[in-house]
């Protein structure tokens, strides 16, 4: 919750350009990119200077302003490196290391290695001997912050955006930080065939959602598309009443989007011939172009196969979500090359589609060659206990490495963020957690959560501890009402 040196954040291409210019400037220094909260991410491999020449002239003024702000930031201190020493490191991308060293600075990982890893001069050294450090957790399916999408007017809402609904001050986001979650895919519910656009967030301490949104280089907020089949999305008309009708409505929507594109293409540069903009169909086209991954709620084996069939027909990119009966069609899922984000519930049933869910699903999928992540579906499972899902899946046959990846790197890959986060590797975002014991043990306490090398959770802080344990006031949100406080008191 430390104050952040932050450029004025206004989403859009101009700002993205401004950042590119900024990082190319002298303020950026050599050690790493000058990153702050709310800034779009750039792949470490791409040297920022190459982006400089591409900045359009009309963005020069905002660039200059933003650059000045960044420069001011930089002069007040590019933060010194922080080195964590003595911990057992679980990089996920490689073998575990005893007595490891992790060095981070300005949002990035500078070094990861064994005890002989060089620690830069001037680094703040934090001895975490006896602790365990692993990447921050990536939750591929969460409802923290109340990210609702479409309403009850119909079954298809490609235009509805979770990011327009999310309450960044909801206590569930603080609880997720306490659970070590650093990245989450916030999804609308499953009561529609298509309930809306999801939002990929970094769970920073934010004043507004802009502080948490992940953006691409063009400034576009990252997210997928939530879809569902089976019983949750069936209801009285206009909702579908059967599984066949569900698939038919989805086919119709995709075809409508293709026709919309054909009209756009026929119109060429002639604005008079172009169809009126349709925000929903634009979003569906993002899906069909693979720029927006479909996160598809599905439980039963036949519903899973229907999703694979639709994907075959329309070619969208897909993550199967929940996949309770995926163990029955593991080979078919493997052959399709589709990853699964699995939910683990302590007992089967609760609804007809989930009667045959199993703790063994993740392990069976792994052995079939399917990429496996776990998710909380918070509030179905509590984000504070996200690691528990990985551990319970391990109990039932998922390998240890698979279990650790299922809540980190594998999940990041399902959100197209694996180049940026999900493992402890040089150049990646400094998103990590410090634990008191092995992450697959019930007794492991998450003591610290760091995002972009900023600590967002500290178990030794009484307020943060309250998020972790629950208790009186734990659900009041990060700030309590002003009228409950005294005048003139610094808060």
């Amino acid at each position: 919750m430390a104050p952040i040196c932050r450029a004025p954040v206004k989403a859009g291409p101009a700002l993205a350009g401004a950042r590119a210019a900024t990082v190319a400037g002298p303020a950026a220094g050599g050690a790493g990119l000058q990153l702050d909260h709310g800034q779009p991410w750039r792949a470490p491999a791409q040297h920022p200077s190459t982006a400089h020449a591409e900045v359009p002239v009309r963005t020069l003024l905002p660039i200059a302003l933003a650059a000045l702000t960044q420069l001011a930031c930089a002069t007040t201190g590019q933060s010194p490196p922080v080195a964590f020493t003595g911990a057992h490191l679980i990089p996920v991308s490689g073998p575990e290391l005893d007595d490891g060293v992790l060095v981070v600075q300005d949002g990035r990982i500078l070094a990861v290695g064994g005890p002989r890893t060089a620690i830069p001069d001037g680094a703040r050294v934090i001895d975490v001997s006896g602790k365990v450090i692993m990447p921050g957790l990536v939750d591929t399916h969460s409802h923290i912050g109340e990210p609702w999408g479409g309403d009850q007017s119909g079954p298809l809402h490609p235009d509805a955006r979770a990011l327009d609904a999310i309450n960044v001050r909801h206590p569930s986001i603080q609880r997720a930080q306490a659970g070590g979650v650093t990245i989450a895919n916030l999804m609308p519910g499953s009561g529609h065939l298509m309930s809306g656009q999801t939002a990929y967030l970094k769970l920073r301490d934010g004043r507004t959602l802009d502080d948490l949104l992940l953006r691409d280089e063009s400034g576009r907020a990252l997210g997928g598309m939530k879809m569902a089949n089976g019983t949750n999305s069936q209801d009285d008309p206009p909702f579908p009443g059967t599984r066949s009708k569900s698939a038919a409505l989805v086919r119709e929507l995709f075809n409508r989007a293709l026709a919309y594109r054909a009209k756009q293409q026929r119109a060429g540069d002639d604005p008079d011939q172009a169809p009126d903009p349709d925000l929903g169909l634009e979003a569906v086209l993002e899906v069909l172009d693979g720029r927006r991954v479909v996160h598809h709620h599905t439980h039963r084996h036949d519903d899973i196969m229907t999703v694979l069939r639709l994907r075959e027909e329309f070619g969208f990119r897909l993550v199967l979500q929940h996949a309770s009966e995926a163990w029955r069609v593991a080979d078919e899922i493997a052959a399709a090359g589709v990853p699964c984000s699995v939910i683990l519930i302590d007992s089967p049933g609760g609804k007809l589609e989930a009667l045959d869910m199993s703790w063994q699903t993740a392990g069976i999928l792994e052995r079939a060659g399917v990429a496996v992540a776990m998710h909380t579906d918070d509030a179905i499972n509590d984000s504070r206990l996200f690691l528990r899902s990985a551990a319970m899946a391990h109990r039932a046959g998922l390998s240890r490495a698979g279990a650790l990846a299922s809540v980190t790197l594998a999940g990041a890959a399902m959100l197209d963020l694996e180049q940026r986060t999900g493992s402890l590797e040089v150049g990646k975002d400094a998103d990590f957690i410090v634990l008191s014991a092995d992450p697959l043990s019930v007794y492991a306490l998450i003591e610290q959560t760091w995002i972009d090398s900023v600590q967002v959770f500290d178990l030794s802080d009484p307020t943060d501890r309250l998020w972790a344990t629950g208790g009186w006031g734990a659900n009041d949100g990060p700030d309590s009402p002003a009228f409950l406080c005294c005048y003139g008191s610094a808060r």
Partner: protein
Amino acid sequence: MTTALIRRTRCAQTLAQRASMYRTRATATTLPMALLALALLSGGLRAQDLAVRGDVLHTMAGAPISDGVVVIRGGRIQAVGPAASTPVPEGMTVLRAPVVVPGLIDAHTTVGLTGWSNQDQDQDQLDGSDPIQPELRALDSYNARDPLVAHLNGLGITTVHTGHAPGAVISGQSMIVKTRSGTVESALVVAEAMVCATLGDQAKASGKQSPGTRSKAAALLRQALVDARIYAEGIAHDDPAERPDRDLRKETLARVLSGELPLLVTAQRHHDIATALRMAAEFGFTLVLDGAAEAHQLLPEIKAAGVPVIPHPMMARAWGPSSPFANASFETPRLLLEAGIPMAQQSGFEDYVPKVRVLHLEAAIAGRWGLSWEDNLASITRESARLLGLGDTLGTLEPGKHGDVALFDGDPFEYTTHCLGTVIEGVVTSDGER
């Protein structure tokens, strides 16, 4: 094919392993022991005769025993002690596991009434026709063959206090059963254990039905207890002609007033807990506090009232600020014990998923937040038996008690530990790694 089929496949593998790893035949080490065994054999080994040997045996009636053994005859524990000094009758089957504990006892659940599928045909935990229905008996709804009963049994839970759910001022009665399959009669331990009441938000009816407020819920409960008191006085009248007609509703509440049946009051918020304490003082019934998500705010009051608490399952959802669980804490079980308040843990009631929670997986979270391992295990064995009035027959591994045992390959609370088998009264009701 069902999930059970996968489990069976795995069971087959583990059974093969167990044949060499865990299942051994006792061998008499001395001649006198062999003679003793022969003598016992002449009496004949029966279906409910079994021994369970653990690398660590937690009797919960003393210090853990390294390489300990429990000998069960006729379903009751005959002997417990170090394997080296505790004779096992010749020919008796010996199960073996790294960690052996008493069969786990769930202090409160609704399993068997809240079925697997969560559809109308298997949801019998709550009848919405009247807010006060103490005459509803749990065993008239209990389905001993529901897959969730087997699920719990397979994870080491041998006894459950189950019945009507929170959600009405008085939803009905509870009972105590073993988690064996078959009929409810064959599983029954106590047919009428407690009467289940609810205060606060969870007691409110929808729409314009009563009760719509906390005060109305309390008023309905108070009036029902007053009516029962008058009924009890009437029934005791010397002249049979003066006695009222038999009324099962009032009769049941009269048994609450007499102290025969405890009133299990589910109350989450602090002011609902206070209301429960107030009414117990007013009417003198035996109160068991259930849920009690804000018990951490009233520890001295609860302690002074001498009331035991069954805190909510640890993973009950906190939801948002308006939830009755908004201030729920993983630390409540520990804080209750530190305050000297008797405490046993539960899996509770869940109206969605998981349709049944798993007792020790819930309790594990309290252990993560400072409840000692021994206190935690006691709260799902010895202390839950005591709270249910069964401390003399269940909850520890001591001679004379039921031969209910759970076998694990490690710390039962650990995420990655498997339950290897479950024994109820000397009969293996589940085996295979889970």
